[in-house]
């Protein structure tokens, strides 16, 4: 059964193994990476440190986005103050220079923070592809426990090394509670 867009190709989404502990998931992820699998993901109720390294996932887009958004915020904030106070509406306030740098720092600073936080929040959502109400992984039997107390490892059909029989044998060798084939 397929729902919505993006599930155009026929066939399963992949194989999903279920584990009871973070350690088991970590070992499985490491074994899968060493076996050469690439298109895979792990699912856990809380972030597990070291899991990204175990699965071989690295991404630094969020920090860079935050940095550039912060720079933009600083630039936009200060430009606004400079343009309004020096060019468009110059006012002599107590003989202070039109471009009153020290007084202009707080708003520029707040703009930096504001845009940086937008970068962090919306950047995180965008790179994660959220909001996305439907995803094939939700077809996994018992997947609602991924947010509670179970740990899952999914290897997708798209993986070049994927083979319906061999991958299943490999995953069963990782001592999961069960391995299920998940529909797209």
């Amino acid at each position, binding site marked *: 059964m397929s729902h919505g867009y993006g599930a155009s190709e026929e066939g399963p989404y992949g194989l999903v193994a279920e584990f009871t502990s973070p350690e088991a998931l970590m070992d499985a992820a490491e074994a899968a990476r060493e076996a050469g699998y690439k298109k895979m993901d792990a*699912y856990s109720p809380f972030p597990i440190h070291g899991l990204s390294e175990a699965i071989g996932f690295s991404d630094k887009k969020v920090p860079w986005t935050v940095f550039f958004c912060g720079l933009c915020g600083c630039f936009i904030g200060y430009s606004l103050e400079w343009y309004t106070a020096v060019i468009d509406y110059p006012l002599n306030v107590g003989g202070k220079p039109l471009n009153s740098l020290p007084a202009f720092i707080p708003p520029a600073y707040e703009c930096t923070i504001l845009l940086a936080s937008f970068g962090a*929040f919306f950047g995180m959502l965008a790179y994660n592809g959220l909001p996305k109400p439907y995803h094939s992984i939700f077809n996994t039997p018992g997947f609602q426990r991924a947010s509670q107390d179970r740990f899952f490892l999914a290897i997708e059909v798209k993986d070049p090394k994927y083979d319906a029989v061999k991958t299943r044998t490999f995953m069963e060798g990782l001592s999961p509670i069960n391995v299920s084939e998940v529909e797209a």
Partner: protein
Amino acid sequence: MATTPPINQPLITGQQSYATIDESIGRLVLQQRIHPRAWWIMATFGVLGTCLLGLSITWLVYQGIGIWGNNIPVAWSFDIVNFVWWIGIGHAGTLISAILLLMRQQWRNSINRFSEAMTIFAVMCAAIYPVLHTGRPWVSYWLFPFWNIMAVWPQFRSPLMWDVFAVSTYFTVSLLFWFMGLVPDFANLRDRATNKPAKVVFGLVALGWRNSNQHWHRYEQAYLLLAGISTPLVLSVHSIVSFDFAVSIMPGWNVSIFPPYFVAGAVFAGFAMVLTFAIPVRKMYKLEHLITDRHIDWMSKITMATGLIVAYGYVLEAFFSWYGANTFEFALFRHIRWTGPYSWAYWMLIFCNVVAPNLFWWPYARRNPWCVMIICQFVSLGMWLERFVIIPMSLMNNYLPSSNRPYYPTFWDIAMYAGTIGFFTMMMFLFIRFLPVINFFEIKDLLYKTIKKGNPAVEPVETVALSGGG
């Protein structure tokens, strides 16, 4: 000694598994029937207060700010006192969620959601005041820079303009931080909800979160960065609020110690408010295994530590008024603060903020919930009085003695203050009922680490079949 030293207790007590954590936090939202009568009493109190707030705002907008006791020279009084008080209360939330996160203080995990909610509602209460104080709240958008046919721009050299930017940024960032923490918890509730409306609503707000490692990876990066940028933000907000006063030349306001002293005072008042809500709520919903005595103990210690910084501020303020050799500054202390018709406010402030929190040196006082509650009420009152002493009491005394004029609050001043307290209570109790009051995934992370460390007091129990889902 009858009491065990809380320092040796783990941060999660009792036999816990991931499932029991889900159960003890999630039932507040998923099992609406468990809410005791106390919830209804508090919520009713909150709704009545909100009605009073609505009434006082309506009357104020209709009649103008003449219904308040403000006069010239006391142009700022209850409105600004309450603004500063509420903003300060919000600061503990950001301190707990951001600064303690950066310092890897894991005990924050069970109180951060709760105090972040407090931040948001406190900033809402705070923002009401300056907007109404402008006198024409229907044009309060003039505070923001935008192209307009009047061809004018806001004055960025004014600390009041800095305030607009600081407070609106603070509110937005706090809201994002809070919502971001909620997304994985919404996913948890979505997966555990048994009735259709709850599934749909939590499904929508969870944004399709699927607990994948890639999600968590970027999530943690973003969360840590948000904490990193919220830390200077929270320090800047109350510093900027204090600039509203410190930048002026009023005696009693023009004090260079204001920024750090205001920030410490904000955290002080904020922790007192966190404790004021945490103690009854953990009792009402039997959350003592997650918000343990050790948490209460540590929060009391922070309250005392910030209280001592504030006390140092009081000493320096008085010292500078004399040492600065400014006649007006010292006269303010001698004739308005130490003696004079409102001197009781100053001495009560000293009692509430300097004497009362020092009881926390005594371990019994930090471990007895009643004692902590009473001291926290003194702190909240004391911090309110501090702003009262600084704002209207300084303005009553001008450079020109002929323009000195006393200040008396009116019924509407007090009604609006009571109204915001009601609004805050209402929002907090709605929050307790409809959103997860403690962070699921951070507590699970803490439990995982506690088990890994092999803490004998917490035994991992075999995971049992869960209710819900399907």
